[in-house]
């Protein structure tokens, strides 16, 4: 990071001369005769560099532990311990900011807007789990992420959701991710941070609505595995892409005896049982189906793009300037004695309607472009989900859906072969 060396524990006042004098001198400086001295003062700036370093070191260490545990040792206990540490440290001690999920927005903003300079910690928080996921699967989700860890720790029973329900809900993280990017690039809002259900719980205070939502999610995660990770988390969606093509990964015990115990144990329905596709399809029919997909996909994208483009004006009201403009216009049409604070401040700062209009037009145009792109991608996601649902491949053995698997390691304890191997290992020693 630039100027890391400059960082001190506290800043002495004379060092700060960045600000021009803004005070209006209605009253002259007093001439003290009693020898009065101005009180000295310092304003401490907490040195976050050190804590950020600890964060990053712990992040890497914990991900390495989980990777080793689930890929090499096939054990759940280290993951469990990491989960507890993560909830305590990243959650209750560090209070969650900046987290990997929210850092998506910082990265996107810094890539698209040169006036924003991203802190190094935010970037590392974003990229390190992605790299680890690409190498070893979603081990960040397993227990390093305090949100996943918290849900994992309260999870007792696994009621399996129907395939239809989880397929529909599974689209939400993608849409959430796309909207987060849309609102971040237009500098409107960081919706991931704003609608974070667990931060209020970790901070023990904050927006009541979000805390209640977080509480509901936690109650839900007692009965079904990780509802937030599966059906909301935008970072999970992103990681699932990299996990799908990860280099080394968690696997079914090699000497699988098809007992189905792991399938029942998996909280996120990532273990696919063997399946025999009895529908025999002729080659011609298959080609036709493929062609239909090729037509269907762009149609869905087009429909999504069109829908989002129509909605872009409504979406743009998330931007502060757009809202201000609406208020100003309303005030022009129907002037009130007491202007709304925002309008009053706008005019008192010498803002003119023309200038605001041109700024709003620019933001609106940005929203049009970006929401069209977002719509197309939403269409793509929905189409791919539907196409995936229609594919029925024959599987002879148990397999892991690496996109969905969060590497929590719950299946290891249920696998009789795994336990047998472990006993054999111990006996050897």
């Amino acid at each position, binding site marked *: 990071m630039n100027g890391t060396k400059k960082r001190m524990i506290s800043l002495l006042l004379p060092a700060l001369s960045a*600000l021009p004098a803004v005070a*209006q001198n209605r009253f002259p400086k*007093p001439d003290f005769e009693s020898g009065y001295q101005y009180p000295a003062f310092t304003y401490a700036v907490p040195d976050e560099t050190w804590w950020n370093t600890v964060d990053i070191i712990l992040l890497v260490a914990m991900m390495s532990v989980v990777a080793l545990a689930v890929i090499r040792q096939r054990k759940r206990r280290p993951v469990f311990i990491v989960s507890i540490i993560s909830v305590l440290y990243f959650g209750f001690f560090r209070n969650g*900011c900046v987290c990997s999920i*929210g850092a998506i927005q910082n990265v996107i903003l810094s*890539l698209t807007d040169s006036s924003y300079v991203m802190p190094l910690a935010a970037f590392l928080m974003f990229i390190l789990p992605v790299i680890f996921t690409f190498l070893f699967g979603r081990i960040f989700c397993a227990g390093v992420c305090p949100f996943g860890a918290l849900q994992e720790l309260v999870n007792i029973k696994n009621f399996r959701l129907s395939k239809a329900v989880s397929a529909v809900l599974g689209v939400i993280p993608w849409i959430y991710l796309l909207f987060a990017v849309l609102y971040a690039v237009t500098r409107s*809002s960081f919706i991931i*941070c704003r609608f974070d259900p667990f931060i209020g719980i970790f901070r023990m205070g904050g927006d009541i609505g979000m805390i209640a939502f977080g509480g509901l999610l936690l109650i839900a995660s007692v009965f079904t595995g990780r509802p937030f990770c599966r059906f909301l988390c935008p970072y999970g969606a992103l990681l699932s892409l990299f996990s799908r*093509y990860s280099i080394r990964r968690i696997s079914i015990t090699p000497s699988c005896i098809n007992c189905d115990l792991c399938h029942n144990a998996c909280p996120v329905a990532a273990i696919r049982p063997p399946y025999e596709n009895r529908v025999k399809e002729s080659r011609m029919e298959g080609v036709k189906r493929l062609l239909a997909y090729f037509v269907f996909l762009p149609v869905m994208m087009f429909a999504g793009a069109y829908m989002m483009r129509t909605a872009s004006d409504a979406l743009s009201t998330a931007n502060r300037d757009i809202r201000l403009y609406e208020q100003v216009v309303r005030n022009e049409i129907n002037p009130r004695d007491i202007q709304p604070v925002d309008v009053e401040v706008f005019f008192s700062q010498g803002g003119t309607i023309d200038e605001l209009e041109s700024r709003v037009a620019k933001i609106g145009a940005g929203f049009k472009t970006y929401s069209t792109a977002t719509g197309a991608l939403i269409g793509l996601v929905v189409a791919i989900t539907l196409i995936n649902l229609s594919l029925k491949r024959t599987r002879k053995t148990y397999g892991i859906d690496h996109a969905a698997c969060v590497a929590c390691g719950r299946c290891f304890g249920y696998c009789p072969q795994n336990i047998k191997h472990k006993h054999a290992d111990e006996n050897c020693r």
Partner: protein
Amino acid sequence: MKKNTTTPISRKRFLHLCSRITAGAAIVAVSGAAVRRMTQQRDADYFWQIDPSKCTFCGRCEKECVLAVSAVKCIHANRVCGYCDLCGGYYRANVKDLNTAAENLMCPTGAIRREYVEDPYFEYTIDESLCNGCGKCAKGCNSFGNGSLYLQVKQELCKNCNECKISKACPSGAIQRAPFGRAYMLKDV
């Protein structure tokens, strides 16, 4: 006879490999772009701070902060202050008697203390443990005085949310991210 045909399995494997390369390339590309952005520019924007030249003392800092008591506090610049007896930040407008009766005082929490220095000067200090960041005193001081009372985000209290909730509510856009060197924007330099 061995024909060079592609079986479904190897096709699948080929696609998988392509995707894997794409994923790896994406990581490298994003990292490269982000690192270039971070190295060629100034210090990172890490702290939230109020620009006093933009602040309008609307009072939203008190309510919008995610903390139970806002991290925004009033700060007093002694070197700007006029040390007046009739202080626009200490007393409400149109007070009859200049005494410390609660109905005369501006601060709703009694966080401003004053001490007699010499005729006719008074020294004002803020008790930050009582201040709730409502900005009433700052408004008074800026309308009738030198503007030595102003609002700042206290960095040791601020949770450094990725998106400051107050900044979204601020009518004048006074709350922005600032690099380390501007973690405080002080008036009395």
